[in-house]
């Protein structure tokens, strides 16, 4: 038996206590990766939070300075690996801004459709993982079933399930395969009902409500000050969605609702994502309805690879050209551009400085998870130890994106 009264008592006979430093992670299932949080505890109450990151730092930005513009696309997949198409999209938009080109319409629709599929996939995972962290395992098993449908669709389009690398500067890699549309529509049909199922399972669950309502609250003004974006900001009552406010690609032709909630607690951040999935399904359907026929990459042989390689395989000059473009890349005009999109986690921005060579002078990733995670320190202060798990889950950090 250990002596629980180590510090003794004071003159009035009360037990003396001291603050305790508790290490959560870096190996802990509820930190969603290798995240370490040092908690200063007074009893069970959090007095201070020190978030330690960097365990997954791969130096994406340093690598990018040594890669050609096409070679960087697979690197962006590995930031938020749940939503690779969104990352690809933000990156190629930044390069296209520097080249002053625009992808053909059909390619834009394909990109937007894939980005919305990625949004559903990312939101699905967190809407299963957050209840799992709080002790409700069932939801995760159900959301994995629907996520598998998205994976299958991704595999059908790109051949890969997670690291899709499908966007190219000036378009996408290839056209959609035959038979894609009916399968995608079937998914949309199924998904609409399934979101209702999750809601029935969790949204009114009394335990879930007790663990998330009024936990980790942040006001809209404070959330802006801490740089929160995406569902985390909209849950605090700030109506800001770049798809509506600064539309890129073809978002100005699509109609959808921006989900805004008032409370800014863990529950609202979770509910916001639930409702966004419904909107994303609508967006995918609109993309399928409106998608025109036509080319999927710009007709600029210096930038985009040829879609069919028949000429490459039969003409010497075409083959040399193809080799040069793939091996040495293409030069991008001198200048700088910052382009950001509404990624599932928030504002995902790419800032590229080009010195006129085929490799960027500097590429900076404005990773939404990195910025959102910073707010953990304010959200968790004054909460109880068990609430920290709910708060980390509701911020939805992907550590690969936090650490870059």
């Amino acid at each position, binding site marked *: 038996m250990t002596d629980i009264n180590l510090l003794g008592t004071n003159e009035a006979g009360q037990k003396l206590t001291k603050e305790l430093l508790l290490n959560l992670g870096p190996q802990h299932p509820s930190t969603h990766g290798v995240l370490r949080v040092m908690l200063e505890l007074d009893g069970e109450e959090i007095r201070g939070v020190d978030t330690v990151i960097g365990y997954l730092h791969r130096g994406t930005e340093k690598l990018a300075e040594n890669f050609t513009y096409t070679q960087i696309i697979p690197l962006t997949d590995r930031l938020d690996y749940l939503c690779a198409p969104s990352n690809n999209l933000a990156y190629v938009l930044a390069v296209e801004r520097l080249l002053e080109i625009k992808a053909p319409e059909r390619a834009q629709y394909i990109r937007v459709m894939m980005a919305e599929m990625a949004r559903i996939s990312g939101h699905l995972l967190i809407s299963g993982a957050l209840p799992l962290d709080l002790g409700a395992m069932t939801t995760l098993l159900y959301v994995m079933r629907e996520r598998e449908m998205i994976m299958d669709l991704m595999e059908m389009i790109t051949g890969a399930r997670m690291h899709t690398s499908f966007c190219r500067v000036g378009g996408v890699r290839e056209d959609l395969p035959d038979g894609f549309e009916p399968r995608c529509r079937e998914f949309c049909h199924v998904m609409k009902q399934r979101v209702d199922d999750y809601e029935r399972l969790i949204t009114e669950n009394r335990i879930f409500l007790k663990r998330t309502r009024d936990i980790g609250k942040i006001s809209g003004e404070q959330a802006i000050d801490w740089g929160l*974006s995406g569902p985390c900001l909209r849950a605090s009552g700030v109506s800001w969605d770049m798809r509506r406010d600064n539309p890129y690609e073809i978002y100005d032709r699509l109609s959808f609702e921006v989900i805004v909630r008032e409370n800014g607690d863990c529950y609202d951040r979770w509910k916001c994502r639930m409702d966004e999935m419904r909107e994303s399904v609508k967006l995918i359907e609109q993309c399928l309805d409106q998608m025109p026929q036509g080319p999927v990459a710009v007709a600029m042989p210096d930038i985009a690879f040829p879609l069919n390689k028949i000429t490459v395989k039969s003409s010497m000059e075409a083959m040399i050209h193809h080799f040069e473009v793939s091996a040495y890349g293409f030069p991008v005009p001198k200048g700088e551009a910052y382009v950001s999109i509404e990624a599932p986690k928030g504002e995902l921005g790419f800032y590229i400085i080009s010195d006129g060579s085929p490799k960027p002078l500097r590429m900076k990733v404005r990773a939404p998870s990195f910025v959102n995670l910073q707010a953990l320190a304010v959200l968790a202060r004054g909460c109880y130890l068990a609430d920290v798990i709910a708060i980390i889950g509701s911020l939805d950090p992907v550590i690969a994106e936090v650490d870059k």
Partner: protein
Amino acid sequence: MSNQPLLELLQRESIQQRCESVYETFGMLTLTVSKENLLALCRLLKHDSALQFNFLSDICGVDHYPQTPRFETVYHLYSIPFKYRLRIKCRLELDESPPSVVPVWQTANWHEREAYDMYGIVFVGHPDLRRIYMWEGYDGYPMRKDYPLRGYADHYNPFGEARSQGAEGA
């Protein structure tokens, strides 16, 4: 969206006297500013009722080696009420330290720690300037242009480059 309304607001006297130049590049307006005026300009941009740049998207360190001044900090601002975007750039010599903008936007905290960690730019007035990605005691600033891609050779990194005498890495 056209940048003309924002450009007119930025050409007012109060802003002009604090920044060096205003220009548009690839669709975004850019202000260049000296480090002495940076903090005052940021406060003004945030609190001016016609601008309200309340959201700091990003702070980015840049190494222009071998040019001088060598470093640069780039701030990307957004105004949620008016949907403006703006970039602020501040050039720095190797040993110069810009002021921290944490007093203006809390979110600058980690961004500045990142720039410090990767480039060794010291932000004056930062509440907690520690390394963020690399560990305490790490030697050198990995994103500097004179830092080798594979790092320096040591016990843990046999593939790194040998450290030459007098190399300015640390």
